């Protein structure tokens, strides 16, 4: 709890926290927002675009109007606001779930590797090295495009989580290794603690800090990677919106309809930035050593 | 002749900690001043304050070295004084030596910072100093890196580095705390010899009353940033005036003399 107090006492962190909270709210309240704005993320509005000009939105700045607060998509005239808020839902959910998955895997395996050492460590450590040396982006794309028919969102979570766990695992392993040599673990062993008790009761609670930090730090990474994969054409499938996919479809339009490109881009940037600031702040708050502000 | 005079020294950190609070010290040329006190009493901060090495801290009071007011010196002048006229050795010799450079390089570096000397010449000085502090095979060992030395050897290297410029004052901050007794005895012996040979004044910071007793002429007992008692070693050890000093002397279990059933302690449980 002191962590949160420390966080809020920093202006930048408080701001980042507010942005993140706002985004989560935006994502959760997406149906409400679209209901208020009277739009839907999938409905076409052929009248809002000009087919004679290749489907460019009618009106200035990407068709921003009272009906479409953030304008419409070219060609099909879908409401950008609705897509942005629903996209937030998808992007955040994927990132959070991928984080959960990678943290679970990474913590469990890193803990076991660091604590037991020996061949267990060798096997897990080598696996992590292996995964880390994978050209993961290429691999993710190949993997995702190789598995048609499945729910892309689920697939993204699994793939991101799978390629992400070694980053968590490496940190946890290092920490667990130090902790396992700690005298309090020796003390518990002298008291007769079983290995499971040592892992779960003694070592694990001490990992919450570092795990919290990597988790916070990896969320922006996943948001960006999900967006990047969508950008490369293997993201969330239509008509479900995600920010990366919006940017990807906007790419050809960046010169003729910059607003369409900029709006999801700015949302993505701000989100990733906010999470990064927050991650930094969490790390500083948990690490008494660092006076790095 | 007084070499170092500290008057009303106060150090306050940005965090609000007042580590030193109105400290006075005097050290004569060629003498050894023992500064003792418990952990956190401000010994190290005092020594760093003398060298102007404190960061994030407000230093007030007078520090007069050989007639010069150090607090008034600009950075360049202070830098020229460091190493050259006032040298320092620290508690943990491993972390105080840069792991990336050979010990000879680090000694020569100190020499070259104050003398116009070529690499070769500085290296020769370094080897000579290593020899002088009792490192066997100095030629070969000069090219070694700190991690290849034992704790005692590293402290010898630190001493060699401190003494290569023949300073007037050596500040030794717990030079033997990290060492074993037999090695400590070696280092103390070395300091004794050096003091006799070179006449270097030493400010010896330690929490070990025995070390002070064996080396110092004068002693200052520090407690919570102040000097609670000062005087010639004999007086302070045999006739401590302050209860704190008395407690400090009594609570250390000794290897000689009568064996008390319970050790006297200083104050309440902390």
């Amino acid at each position, binding site marked *: 709890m002191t962590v949160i107090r420390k966080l809020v006492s920093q202006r930048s962190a408080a701001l980042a926290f507010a942005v993140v909270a706002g985004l989560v709210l935006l994502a959760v309240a997406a149906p409400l927002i679209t209901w208020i704005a009277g739009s839907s993320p999938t409905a*076409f509005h052929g009248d809002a675009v000009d087919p004679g000009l*290749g489907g460019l939105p009618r009106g200035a700045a990407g068709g921003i109007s009272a009906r479409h607060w953030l304008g419409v998509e070219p060609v099909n005239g879908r409401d950008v606001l609705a897509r942005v808020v629903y996209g937030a839902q998808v992007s955040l959910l994927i990132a959070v779930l991928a984080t959960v998955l990678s943290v679970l895997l990474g913590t469990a395996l890193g803990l076991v590797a660091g604590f037991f050492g020996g061949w267990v460590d060798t096997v897990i450590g080598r696996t992590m090295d292996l995964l880390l040396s994978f050209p993961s982006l290429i691999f993710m794309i190949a993997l995702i495009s190789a598995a048609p028919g499945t729910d892309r969102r689920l697939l993204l979570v699994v793939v991101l989580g799978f390629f992400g766990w070694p980053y968590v695992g490496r940190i946890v392993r290092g920490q667990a290794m130090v902790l396992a040599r700690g005298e309090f673990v020796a003390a518990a062993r002298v008291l007769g603690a079983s290995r499971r008790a040592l892992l779960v009761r003694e070592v694990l609670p001490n990992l919450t800090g570092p795990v919290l930090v990597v988790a916070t730090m990896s969320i922006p990474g996943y948001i960006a990677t999900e967006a990047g994969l969508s950008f490369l054409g293997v993201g969330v499938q*239509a*008509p479900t919106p995600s920010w990366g996919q919006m940017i990807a479809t906007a790419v*050809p339009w960046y*010169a003729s309809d910059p607003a369409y490109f900029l709006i999801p881009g700015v949302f993505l940037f701000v989100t990733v930035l906010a999470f990064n600031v927050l991650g930094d702040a969490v790390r500083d708050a948990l690490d008494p050593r660092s006076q790095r502000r | 002749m007084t070499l170092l005079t500290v008057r009303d020294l106060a150090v306050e950190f940005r965090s609000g900690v007042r580590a030193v609070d109105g400290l006075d010290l005097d050290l004569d040329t060629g003498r050894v001043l023992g500064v003792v006190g418990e952990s956190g009493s401000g010994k190290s901060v005092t020594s760093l304050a003398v060298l102007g090495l404190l960061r994030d801290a407000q230093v007030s009071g007078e520090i007069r070295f050989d007639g010069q007011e150090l607090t008034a010196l600009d950075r360049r002048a202070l830098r020229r004084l460091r190493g050259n006229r006032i040298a320092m050795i620290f508690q943990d010799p491993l972390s105080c030596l840069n792991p990336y450079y050979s010990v000879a390089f680090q000694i020569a570096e100190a020499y070259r910072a104050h003398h116009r000397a070529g690499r070769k010449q500085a290296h020769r000085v370094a080897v000579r100093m290593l020899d002088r502090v009792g490192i066997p095979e100095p030629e070969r060992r000069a090219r070694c890196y700190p991690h290849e030395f034992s704790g005692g050897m590293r402290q010898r290297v630190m001493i060699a580095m401190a003494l290569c410029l023949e300073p007037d004052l050596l500040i030794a901050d717990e030079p033997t705390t990290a060492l074993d007794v037999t090695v400590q005895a070696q280092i103390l012996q070395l300091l004794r010899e050096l003091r006799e040979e070179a006449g270097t004044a030493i400010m010896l910071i330690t929490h070990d009353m025995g070390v002070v007793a064996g080396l110092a002429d004068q002693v200052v007992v520090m407690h919570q940033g102040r000097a609670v008692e000062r005087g010639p070693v004999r007086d302070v050890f045999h006739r401590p005036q302050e209860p704190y000093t008395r407690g400090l002397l009594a609570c250390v279990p000794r290897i000689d003399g009568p064996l008390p059933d319970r050790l006297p302690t200083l104050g309440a449980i902390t």
Partner: protein
Amino acid sequence: TGGGGGAAGANAVAVKGGTLHVLSTLDLEHLDPARNYVTSSEDVSRLIYRTLTTFAAAPGQAGGKVVPDLATDTGRPSDGAKTWTFTLKPGAKFEDGRPITSRDVKYGVERTFAAELPEGPPYARMWLAGGESYKGPYKDPAGLASIEAPDDSTVVFHLNRPVADFGSAVSLPMFAPVPQDKDTGVTYDSRPFSSGPYKIDSFDPKKRLTLVRNTNWDPATDTVRKGLPDKVVIDLGLDTAVVDQRLIAGQGEDANAVAMEPIGPASVGRVLTDPQLKSRLVTGDSINTRYLSINTRHKPLDDVRVRQAIAYALDKDALRTTRGGPIAGDLATSLLPPSLGYQTEDPYPSKDGRGDPDRAKALLAEAGHASDLTLTLDAPASAAGKAQAEAVQASLGRAGISVKINEISSSAFYSTVGNTSQEHDLVIAGWSPDWPGASTYLPIVFDGRLITSQGNNDYAQYDSPAVEAQIDKIAAIGDPAAAQAAYGQLAQQIMQDAPVVPFLWDKAPILVGGNVAGAYGHVAYVGRLDLVSLGLRK
């Protein structure tokens, strides 16, 4: 915009020399004549090798006319169009100066039978007598007896059935001559031996093809190709936006450049609103029809009412907008485009082609599928493919049909949907006849007897005995005009069953650089520029 294929810089004079740049977003899939069966590759290969006949180098419908190329005429049929004789022009040479002989033509056609060289058109295998069992010259060096080369300049084809437009068929690259000693098998693809005005200097697939003048090409023997630039550089695999923007900016070398493909929807607005740019836009008609194919073998799509409901529901205008709006072509109302000279009335009309969801719902209700109808649409995983798929999704959604999109990698798209077990309910497809006319269209796409488990073209898996009988009947008609009229009726007959919903007759709006002359869209190359006529002004 309108028909006829506007020709930018038509009255400007192109001079000989210079380097022409072509900017392409695609790759040249195959340059080997045996495998070359994609319009853009065909267009490019016309610079490199010659065929017995070829299309006239002319804008508009005139370009659909087949004219002699290596041959002296468009072929002399005999034996009720079962035997076709061609005489080679004297003086035509390969890039090394050797004369082109009938044996080279015979060998070139024989190569197309080799399994190592797949993907080419099926006509030789279908029509040449004994073609079913011939395995190509690598396995069977004796050659195919039904191709005769009695002397150096005569080649005779013996067919297993009468083929009235065989003279058009030999315009395909597969009828290009290949000298046997220059055949490098599979690797011939990257360096075919030149008989046209240019030869390959270097080819880096997906990157760049550089063509330089073939000094042994004699313009006197060639009435079609102009061969003006000294060098043609084709950049491949560029981004659509980049091609558009480079040509819009038109600076430096890009003034000497043309686009290979139509401008992207995102650039339409900018080009059309700028008169200077608009003047550099060449719009070519094509004979391509795009349609939504409905798998008639899947339930409940076997019910014609459901298919008709889809035909009513489809918002053709939205689909066209994904391709750039009106400039991308006219809304299709029937199977055969007006550019082939057909009447076009829509059996499933709607206002402005926006679809009629109410009619659709009514039909669905009648068929008992008012709700809960979920269909899967196969779409290529390209930007355009996705945009079209979403448009289909949205417009059928209005009629209560929910559509799931199944993205398929572009390169595997046709082979996947051509696999009857892998194909889903709906496919966005289209057909461009191999030469103007319906004979390489309706009989191939809608003849249920041709459905194969793999490599299928009848994505609707439409199999109507009545239609098949009609196809056989038309095949026997000798008079081209009568055949054309009969195909028109056939098209209408097919439309009643709604196996496909045509939505667009393509046009190709293509940007050309300011210094390029002689640019026009060629109807046989889906409206894209006829590369053989291009030249630089200075």
